[in-house]
């Protein structure tokens, strides 16, 4: 079984920075006649004005509903007649764009994408349709215990900071958004500076660079600098329950503010999180809450690290009658990893998993493009994949304990439950 592991690196990734600040990354992959592009722009829900939470998300929804050279109908026909996918979405600190198409159609898709990003027309009738859809989705969110737990958890753990507000907004804020708000948000916040487009697939690197440079190289716009207030640290444990009638399962989310992606502690936290709620069948949390106690189908932990902040959380879905017991078990596991060192075997297992699974994440065009994008967005360097195993393997038992103790402090915990009372 031949296995020469050569990760994409400086020799195999083409990287070009355009004069207007756009970065393009390309990795050739001729396995299938397909090209995948994933991109990020430096505009997100953190730019939503007060009272208009959800505006960035509304704006990305309108990007695909008409632009200067592609009316709504023309946009739809162009993409769907070739079975391609072109999406735009918003997250807290970025706007995302994605293309999946047969290689023969990539030039067309780039042209449509560029016009949508640069020149959306925000047609009023389509604005009204999208708002109607968004309001129904927000109504459905209010029926969903895991979505409601997530909504209140992020608001709470970020102490009401804009980083913790829901990307899709609230019923009242989405009702308050006007068509002109969307047009103005685009005009003010969209620009080339800091945007990244990562391409993987059946295309010559120079051809991909030329297409993107032709379509986006002339884009000039200078959004105002972002000025986020400092994150308020949680100084006392906060617990709240979202009462929801008629639900047979409750959802639990609890966690803390932790580290941004570029924080020196990030990799130690990643290893600690793998031990707590990922490795094997959801780590220690899965072992105790699912396997030993039989309380939940899912009980896990995860790490959500962005450019400015990060959250380390644990979640589970349980019968309302078991909710207190599950919360106590999860808190006990968090306390345990914060107070006592992990075993050398647990550390070695987590390191073997985190480094060993790399070839799987790099198998597909989706995985490759997402990895290149993340490397550039987080300024990790083109040699990151080659360095990654050594970084993970350098984490020690002491490191794990230090970060668990530092971040999983009881007074910093937000604990949110959503569901019916038992």
């Amino acid at each position, binding site marked *: *079984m*031949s*296995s*020469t*592991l050569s990760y994409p690196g400086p020799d195999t990734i083409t990287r070009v920075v355009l004069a207007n600040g756009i970065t393009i990354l390309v990795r050739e*992959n001729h*396995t*299938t006649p*397909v090209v995948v592009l994933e991109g990020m722009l430096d505009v997100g829900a953190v730019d939503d004005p007060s009272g208009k939470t959800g505006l960035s998300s509304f704006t*990305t*929804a309108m990007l*695909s509903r008409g632009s200067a050279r592609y009316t709504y109908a023309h946009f*739809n*026909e162009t993409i*769907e007649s*070739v*079975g*391609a*996918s072109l999406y735009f*979405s*918003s997250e807290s600190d970025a706007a995302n764009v994605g293309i999946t198409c047969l290689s023969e159609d990539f030039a067309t898709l780039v042209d449509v994408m560029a016009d949508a990003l640069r020149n959306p027309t925000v047609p009023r009738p389509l604005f*009204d349709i*999208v708002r*109607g859809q*968004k*309001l*129904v*989705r927000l*109504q459905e969110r*209010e*029926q969903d*215990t*895991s979505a409601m737990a*997530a909504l209140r958890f992020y608001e709470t753990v970020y102490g009401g900071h804009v980083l913790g507000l829901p990307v*899709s907004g609230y019923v009242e804020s989405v009702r308050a958004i006007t068509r002109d708000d969307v047009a103005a948000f685009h005009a003010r916040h969209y620009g080339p500076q800091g945007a990244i487009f990562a391409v993987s697939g059946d295309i010559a690197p120079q051809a991909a660079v030329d297409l993107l440079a032709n379509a986006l190289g002339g884009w000039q716009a200078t959004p105002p600098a972002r000025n986020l207030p400092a994150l308020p640290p949680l100084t006392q444990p906060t617990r709240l329950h979202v009462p929801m*009638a*008629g*639900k047979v*399962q409750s959802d639990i989310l609890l966690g803390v503010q932790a580290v941004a992606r570029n924080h020196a502690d990030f990799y130690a936290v990643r290893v600690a999180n793998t031990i707590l709620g990922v490795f*094997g069948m959801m780590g220690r949390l899965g*072992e105790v809450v699912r*396997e030993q106690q*039989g*309380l*939940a*189908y899912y009980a896990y932990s995860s790490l959500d690290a962005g450019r400015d902040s990060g959250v380390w959380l644990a979640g589970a*879905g349980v*019968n309302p009658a*078991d909710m207190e017991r599950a919360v106590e078990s999860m808190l006990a596991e968090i306390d345990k990893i914060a107070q006592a060192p992990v075993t050398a075997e647990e550390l070695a297992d987590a390191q*073997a*998993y985190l480094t*060993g*699974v*790399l*070839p*799987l994440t*790099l*198998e*597909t065009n989706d995985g490759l493009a997402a990895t290149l994008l993340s490397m550039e967005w987080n300024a990790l360097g083109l040699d990151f994949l080659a360095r990654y195993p050594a970084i993970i393997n350098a984490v020690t038992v002491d490191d794990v304990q230090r970060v668990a103790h530092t971040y999983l402090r009881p007074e910093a915990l937000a604990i949110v439950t959503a569901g*019916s009372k038992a």
Partner: protein
Amino acid sequence: MTPTPLHRTTLANGLQVLLRENHSAPVASFWIFYRVGSRNEAPGLTGISHWVEHMLFKGTELFPRGEFDKAVSRAGGSFNGMTSQDWTTYFETFPADRIELALQVESDRMANCLFDPAEAESERTVIISEREGSENSYAYLLSEEVQALAFYAHPYRHPIIGWKSDLHTMQRDDLYAHYGAWYTPNNAVAVAVGDFDTATMAAAIERYFAAIARGPEPAPMRIVEPEQLAERRVVLRGNDPTAYLTLAFRAPAATHADFFPLIVLDAVFSGAKGLGMAGGGGNARTNRLYKALVESRLAADAGSSYRPTIDPDLFSFFVTLAPEVEHTQIESVLWGEIRKMQQDGITQQELAQAIKQTRAQFAYSADSVTYQAYWLGFAEMVTGQAWLEEWPERLAAVTLDDVQRVAQHYFAPARQVVGWYVPDPDATDLLEDEGWDGDDGDDGDDENEDSAAMNEPAVGA
């Protein structure tokens, strides 16, 4: 890209083996499919295939509980198990030099699972919790009601995860008997795709699996659903404020000649889905339902669904109603679209687009050895390999007349099953006090921003 040839062999104990080399990435995927699913379950034992699937993660002598998942993760692998109506499957995908571990664990648990009674009991509440996660959604509850109403005799009537009452009463010995009856080499197919040498892989599979004894031939499932003579309706009421509607019709098995015309029909109604199992998910706004229901602001979402199955299952429409819209109004628009299809058929352009979309979406998942192996095993369970090899030609051969004919043949008022979920603030909670104690984007743009939604045809581990 032309795939390398499929290597096919059968061991002396009856285990079928399908191997395909693929050296495009240093990874390999190994799957075991068993010819058993909720289709093979008797009343009182619904959900047993899925529960047995969970038990295969609960330990053998060689890999006590927890050791299997740790060994796979330690080797940088991913793994899962899935139960469908027609089959149960387990897979591991690894860096190619570790793939032998998959053969070791799958051969071990084909024959040596312990089904420890305490573990079976602990898993009861895990599975009930899995079910309760779904029960929180009235859209899910409505789909269960419609499925149960659509079949009087055939086991497709019951949910893969099982009725909750059966999950409370089933016993460890039931599970163990199911395992003994269906988990035999002669009822299984092993599939490997990836960066390996075929002769080496074939020898390794022989080494791990040949010693497992052949079992009795599994009992055939002979139940045929009688023809539906009358329209069927169900109305579900609850407190949640978003209204849903489902309209479903019996539709043929994957191997039926009408399967591909119906796949085209499904794509024209609501966009192509890459044959409905893996892949799919392109933009879908030029389709008829989106125009008739979403752009008219009668619905927030409208779709249709038709999947390849062993026996006839359903062709379904599903609509999320906009506020203040009546279910009767949605039914009338859906029937208007159906009648238009029956009277006028579809256009040449719609046909061409449906074919191109389906082919493109299938291609999008083809760079993954995991999906390639899945499809090989799936075809072996449901359709035979010829179907998987020939579907692009068979899809391309669909004519406008075929599509109009199947629209006329399968959609009729007397053959419809209609389900309404009606928001009702005065509805009593159906599920909270049933007497069991507690021991046991828009169209793809933005919809996953705040929470992930899953709509899988199979129930995972």
